[in-house]
């Protein structure tokens, strides 16, 4: 497979995952917002966290002086200045799908293309700000399309290189995003308290789509238990451990021979990351310690992404012998 095509498949999957997660997060917050409007403090805290998870606060503050809801929604969904706005990630998905058209199922390209056209022709032309109900409808459509895409890939894609490169993109994006969400929640607490025991984790559960499954197993929603769950649960398909195991699986399929330098170059840091995640013991650590641990894991994840891109020559031409 061409490196350029592998790169496009990898990024298409990453952007798909990012789009779906961000759309979910925005939906959660738009609902929460309805009840919160009286409680100014929490309301802004939540929006700030979301801004940091879905984009970058520094970048936003560079163009806007204060955080106000309508400009923020516009920024997260449609702004040309935000490379992670839903509009931008959806466009990136479509462009990458177009590049890889001959490696993916035709229906997959058609789905991405049709959704993008719908967005251009029906959403982008509307008057702003959107009424809440149309925002919900749009986000709902984004997520519905994502689910269809996931089903289509699972159901119809041959288990071959293109499939596994997309898997790498998906699971790496998911692991990284999960760690980032945990980290941002923790950092927000740092200002209010130094005792993790006092903090509630309901909001994080909502953002990570873990509410239902968590409640089936646990009753207490203390943040520290929630984080423990999001890192370690062996069955929750968004936990960091599950993501890393899926990555391992993908590499086993990409590299048939498990003694090659390529396989080892990837497997070694992946194993190290898995071990490091397993070792994290939230309940007996202080807030500062946990933040530090999460920062390290996030760096490891990002570093792993670079290693992956280097091993498969996904970066622009370095002359290879």
């Amino acid at each position: 497979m061409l490196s350029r095509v592998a790169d496009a498949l990898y990024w298409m999957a990453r952007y798909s995952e990012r789009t779906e997660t961000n759309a979910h997060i925005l939906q959660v917050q738009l609902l929460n917002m309805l009840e919160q409007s009286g409680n100014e403090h929490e309301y802004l805290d939540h929006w700030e966290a979301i801004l940091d998870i879905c984009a970058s606060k520094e970048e936003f503050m560079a163009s806007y002086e204060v955080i106000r809801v309508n400009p923020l929604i516009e920024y997260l969904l449609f702004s040309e200045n935000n490379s992670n706005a839903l509009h931008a990630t959806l466009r990136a998905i479509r462009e990458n799908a177009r590049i890889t058209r001959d490696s993916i199922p035709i229906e997959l390209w058609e789905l991405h293309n049709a959704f993008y056209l719908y967005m251009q022709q029906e959403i982008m032309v509307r008057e702003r700000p959107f009424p809440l109900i149309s925002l919900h409808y749009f986000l709902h459509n984004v997520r519905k399309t994502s689910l269809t895409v996931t089903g289509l890939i699972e159901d119809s894609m041959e288990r071959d290189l293109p499939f596994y490169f997309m898997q790498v993109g998906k699971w790496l994006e998911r692991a990284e995003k999960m760690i980032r969400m945990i980290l941002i929640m923790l950092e927000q607490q740092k200002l209010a308290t130094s005792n993790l025991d006092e903090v509630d984790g309901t909001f994080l559960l909502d953002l990570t789509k873990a509410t239902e499954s968590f409640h089936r197993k646990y009753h207490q929603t203390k943040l520290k238990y929630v984080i423990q769950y999001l890192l370690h649960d062996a069955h929750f398909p968004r936990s960091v451990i599950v993501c890393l195991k899926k990555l391992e699986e993908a590499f086993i399929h990409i590299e048939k021979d498990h003694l090659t330098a390529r396989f080892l170059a990837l497997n070694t840091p992946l194993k190290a990351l898995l071990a490091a995640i397993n070792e994290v013991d939230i309940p007996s650590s202080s807030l500062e310690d946990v933040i530090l641990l999460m920062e390290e894991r996030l760096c490891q994840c990002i570093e792993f992404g670079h290693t992956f891109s280097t091993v498969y020559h996904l970066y622009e031409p370095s002359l290879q012998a």
Partner: protein
Amino acid sequence: MMKLYDSGSYFDEMLDGDQPKPHYCSFYRKLSAFSQEQLEEKHQQAQSSFLRQGITFTVYGAQGGTERTMPFDFVPIIIPHEQWHIIETGMKQRVKALNCFLQDVYTQQQIVIDGIIPRRLIEQNPYYFPEMLGVQVPIDNHIFLAGIDLIRDEHGVYRVLEDNLRNPSGISYVFQNRFVMKEIYPEFFSKHTIQSLEKQMATMKKALLAHRPPTLQAHVEPKAVLLTAGMYNSAYYDHVFLAQQLNIQLVEGRDLIVQDLKVYMKTIYGLEQIDIIYRRIDDDFLDPTVFREDSLLGVAHLMAAYKAGNIAILNAVGNGVADDKAMYAYVPDMIRYYLHEEPILENVTTYHLDDESQRAWVLDHLHELVIKNVSASGGYDMLIGPHASAEEINSFYEKILKHPQQYIAQPTIQLSRAPAYQNGKFYPCHVDLRVYVMKGDDIFVLPGGLSRVALKEGSLIVNSSQGGGAKDTWILKEELQHAKSSSRRTVLDGTI
């Protein structure tokens, strides 16, 4: 029975007066069974099918290009078997002669020595590449895929309008038009037996792989790629379609690299050598070390690898010398010279404007002639005398005086017409037909081709960049012409 219109003094593909021609009768009967609403609905479905599949081309403009679909018109061009047989034979003859010419131009230039073609026409041609002199191209074939444009005059005579021997585009539309036609207008196919397109791609692949580079070892299967300019190119869909159908990698220039005069593609496992490049970028952009330095689309040192015999490039480099509008007039002579045959398909009469007496006559008759720039395409820099303003005629008068060699003149031909259905009504539109000819060890003509239609009422320009659309093209099979429906054949509507 519905009345479409009266064909009048024009040659109409479907109608004689207001009645359908014999080979259009059953189509016409089916058509009459549809209501306006049904036709309108199907029309919408067809257009959105193209959009959904992303079968679009890019129109360059102020905003860096917008995507459009090529409008599709469902009334097919139906060609009876006998007529197609003549076209097919004529096409093979023409492409064979053109290839002989290219082989000759880049070796002995015997045709110049024998005084058939003026040397000037070759040496002053911007698409003639002396770099190609003596380069041994695989199986002596310069033309892997040709797109020859045919028109019909007011008497229904087919004439060649233009040869495209560089990168003829649009072949994917032939397949997509058929696909959409079958999907949305299945009713029309019953009672017809037409030549299928199903197996054509296998033939094309065989022709492609026949171009083994001279240094490739005998038993090794060659590895082929399709070189595209990328997803913003106006013909990108064509490239994707062909790569998929031929089952070869779709690569961009930056995916390739030349080392030690061999060409490699950059894969996730490192470099992999390739043997055949079906390129869909122009000569000028192929190799920045030889042609345009600013080309970002090509591959540095590709020409060196080509000359060393390590890579086949299809179509061959330098084909433009044979397909420009000035050389066009000499193709019948090429056929006589190389094949010792009379041309089967006629050209359109062409006047050379560097000839003083021809020029004088042409300048006097600009208002009734078509003037074309010999190196332009796509309907640009062209004067259609009878439709032109005095100002336009004057401007061409000046241009011709200044650069007589740059222009040719042709009589205005009353192009044939066929019904098109747009905006809820049928009206006559001018049509032409691009026929695709593939050449490997043998020559093969794709049955049918791309029927292009000038959808703007009264317009003569069929190019998709200027508002043209496309139609499906049906070649009737022989047996239908002679036999009534046989008892063994099941036709599509379920009757036997």
